[in-house]
């Protein structure tokens, strides 16, 4: 889905794409994070920490390094943008008990990322109760600078809304070749974040699940390339 997993240096070196959103500039980073410079706010969504150990409970043994790898990427983003606030837009943990399975290293890593900043955990469908033992404030939703931040987009929302949950990805077909990549999905009013976790798949933006969320005419899939973000219009996008 995303281009090959990058080293921390490569993640840091990615070139973000500036878009105009709710009257200010927002940087869409190819790592899958969004930077709201005016608020010094970094947003990531759907980290799905401890997805590996969640599968292990069903005796499917994915490499137990997903949490460390995802947190390393988050740390790299924090170092790159030096945010005052980090918002995790839900499904930070793959299941409701995941935060209890976090190892000491992971807890230390979260502590280091959160140090000197406000850490906000928006709850998601995978982690409805607030995480235990990790620094930060759990909230159901957040309103900041005229933008609503929540886990799942609400169809009746008419203002600017940033959400996650669907793990949007887009499929581009040209010259008989197809590329499928995670993406930010936006029509300029609503912005749906890509998933930030290293083990997360994606749902094509052409899927019925997105019906009614976006204005077709202004819709863009901001596809995550290996070192930059590419804005692709509806004409080039195809379902799976």
């Amino acid at each position, binding site marked *: 889905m995303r281009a090959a*997993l990058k080293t921390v240096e490569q993640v840091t070196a990615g070139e973000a794409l500036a878009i105009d959103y709710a009257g200010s500039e927002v940087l869409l980073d190819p790592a899958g994070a969004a930077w709201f410079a005016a608020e010094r706010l970094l947003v990531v969504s759907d980290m799905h920490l401890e997805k590996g*150990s969640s599968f292990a409970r069903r005796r499917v043994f994915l*490499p137990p*390094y997903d949490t460390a790898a995802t947190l390393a990427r988050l740390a790299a983003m924090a170092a790159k943008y030096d945010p005052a606030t980090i918002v995790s837009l839900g499904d930070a943990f793959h299941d409701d008990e995941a935060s209890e399975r976090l190892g000491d290293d992971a807890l230390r890593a979260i502590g280091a990322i959160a140090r000197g900043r406000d850490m906000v955990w928006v709850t998601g469908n995978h982690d409805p109760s607030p995480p235990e033992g990790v620094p930060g404030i759990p909230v159901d939703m957040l309103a900041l600078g005229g933008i609503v931040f929540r886990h799942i987009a609400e169809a009746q929302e008419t203002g600017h809304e940033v959400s996650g949950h669907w793990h949007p990805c887009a499929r581009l077909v040209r010259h008989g070749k197809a590329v499928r990549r995670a993406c930010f999905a936006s029509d300029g009013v609503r912005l749906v974040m890509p998933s930030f976790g290293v083990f997360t798949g994606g749902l094509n933006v052409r899927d019925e699940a997105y019906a009614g969320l976006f204005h077709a005419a202004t819709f863009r899939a901001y596809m995550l390339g290996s070192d930059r973000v590419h804005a*692709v*219009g509806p004409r080039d996008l195809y379902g*799976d």
Partner: protein
Amino acid sequence: MSIATPPPQPSSAGIDLPRPFLDWFASKGWQPRVHQLELLARAEAGQSTLLIAPTGAGKTLAGFLPTLVDLTRRGRPKPGLRKPGVHTLYISPLKALAVDIHRNLSTPVEEMGLPVEIETRTGDTPQSRRQRQKLNPPDILLTTPEQLALLLSHKDAERFFSDLRHIVLDELHSLVTSKRGHLLALALARLHRLCPHLKATGLSATVSEPDLLRQWLVPQRTGGEMAGIVTVAGGAKPDITILKSKERVPWSGHSARYAMPEVYEAIRQHQTTLLFVNTRSQAELLFQELWKINDDNLPIALHHGSLDVSQRRRVEHAMQANSLRAIVATSTLDLGIDWGDVDLVVHVGSPKGASRLAQRIGRANHRMDEASKAILVPANRFEVMECQAALDANYLGAQDTPPLADGALDVLCQHILGSACAEPFRADDLYAEITTSAPYAHLPRETFDRAIQFVAHGGYALQSYERYARIKLTKDGTWRVAHPSVAQQYRLNCGTIIEAPMLNIRLTRQRKGGPLRGGPVLGKIEEGFIESLVQGDTFLFAGKVLQFEGIHENDCIVSKASDLNAKVPAYAGGKFPTTTYLSEQVRKMLADPSGWDRLPKQVSDWLAIQKAKSIVPGPRDLLVETFPRGNRYYMVAYPFEGRLAHQTLCMLLTRRLERAKARPLGFVASDYAVAIWGLRDMGQMLRRGDLSLSGLFDEDMLGDDLEAWLDESYLLKRTFRACATIAGLIEKRHPGKEKSGRQMTVSADLIYDVLRSHEPDHILLQATRNDARTGLLDIGRLGDMLSRIEGRIVHKDLEMISPLAVPVMLEIGKETVHGDDVSDALMAEAAEDLIRDAIGADI
């Protein structure tokens, strides 16, 4: 495979055949053949045997005769006594072959009135019959390697096989080269332990190293133990010719379209013609081309593995009834199924291997004492040489069956889990058993122990999953399944055939506007191919030109296209590279102008011009040519090592040329040559000493450069996905399930990336690298080539393209290699268009 035994031969004296057999042979006017009696005698002496025989030699009856005789002597079980279990297992690589053998074996058994029950057990066998088979087993069970593995994973396996005396392994030469063969070897090791008196009979076509197959059949205790061997000499030499076309043989391509009128004429002049091609897309194309000129409306049919089963069956029945004049087929027909009275085999395109040619020609004419007739139709000029080499090899009886690889580690992991499902095991005992199988005879204990750790809890250095283990080491020193669900998990994932995800092709009747669904299924097609289509694209399938309409759940919806110029399905499978042996013969042929007069004049003329304008390399040399063309500079090399090894070579050379600042832009690889082009004059760089060919082609490219490239190679990811599925790390995709919640699935690519960066020595990465050596990357062959050409690189700096370079240069643009670079370029292009549109609108 017919078991009929035509003309009488001198009988081997002293063999005591039971009465019904003697009567039966007499009633048919036949006599048992020498090798059939030989196999019987050996089996009676308790020996395992490898039978090597050409098609039509009565192999099947030879394999089963010992069983039939033994069961006849035993007679029906007395009423009230326990009915014995399975006496003989027959393992076939194909379900269809098991069914075919069932039919062919039942005939003599019924005619002789023998007290023998025969049944098949395949993936298609209904659950009720499987249950009944376990309670009331037949005397002879015909099955596949996967079904045997499943039977062995049941708790009562030891009891079920307690009466087993004999196992017959059909088409052994084809089984042993794959992971299915590894799975079967491990099952055979188990059976040899459960039944110490088990006799194994291997039935095989001619192979290059029969001793390896002989070792395969019997337990390797001290190493090198071998089954006996019985070899039946081939019948009459086949009559093979290369089509001497009046038309111009093309420089490149694989369609052989130029030869269609001559191929059609050959079909007209024979009763039944079997046309072999190497890939399914070639089959579709050939079929289409033949029907375009089929003025006599001859019944010509198409058969390949992607077509719907019912359609394939119809073709097979028509074939057996001799109601077809020609059938276009891929390797699905390679294996020994009975195909009626074929009197001509036409091979379109090079067979790519000497043994493959021999096996395919064997399809014609099942009477081994009559010469089979075959015509080879080279699709391009290099293939003319390749066909000539294959023909020479056939005349000499040379064989180039692939070498046997060490047992795959992913299969080992699967087998360990299956073993635990059957009964608790001690690691020492299981290791001892596994190392009696030939492919695993040299398995290091340390690797085996890591495989157990993998099965238990993933085998990660970070041992965080122990509490969820699948198997646990208990106090009595045995490994046991930790939970009943584990056995279920094993059964769902058992097997080694990882097919690319497939979609049904459904022909919709509804045109524009209506919902996309309904209509008959034409067959299956790889999801990867469909992904590259957009609505309205056309392609050839099942002999029709189809228009892609869309995807609905697991169906790819198509309509009939009016367009006759279709894209051709680019199937992933079926493109094998030329064998090492054949490549070597082609290099020798090229190096020896005195033998060129055996080639068609247009080919020998071509080589003569090459000799005049550039260089004809020696048989062990590597010729490298450099020349400018357009505004690019080209480097063309001729290793003749097959497409896969060449692709890997290109990837690595491009990296090195980039470092040397030659600014390479692209490359293309054929079976014979590689071409790389760039912005700087590589010929000049070589002349000035800015670039050295010995440095460029140094073996050390298989070190760091290879590792660095593997980091990004999608080919390795594909290999990893198969290993991870076979080993049980990720679950097999089951039809219908995969579409639910795609965003919740974990892709193998992501696992691969995480594993590579965190635990590069993990057993699954080791398994992946082993596969890459022989599989999609062919690194082993590339390494051999690099050491062969050390100090033997010949450079020719030219002002223009050489004759030999034309074929590979024509490939440019036809095939490009996918990768992240391409993906990024596509996205960037789409984004630029969007900007251009936006700016255009503003103005």
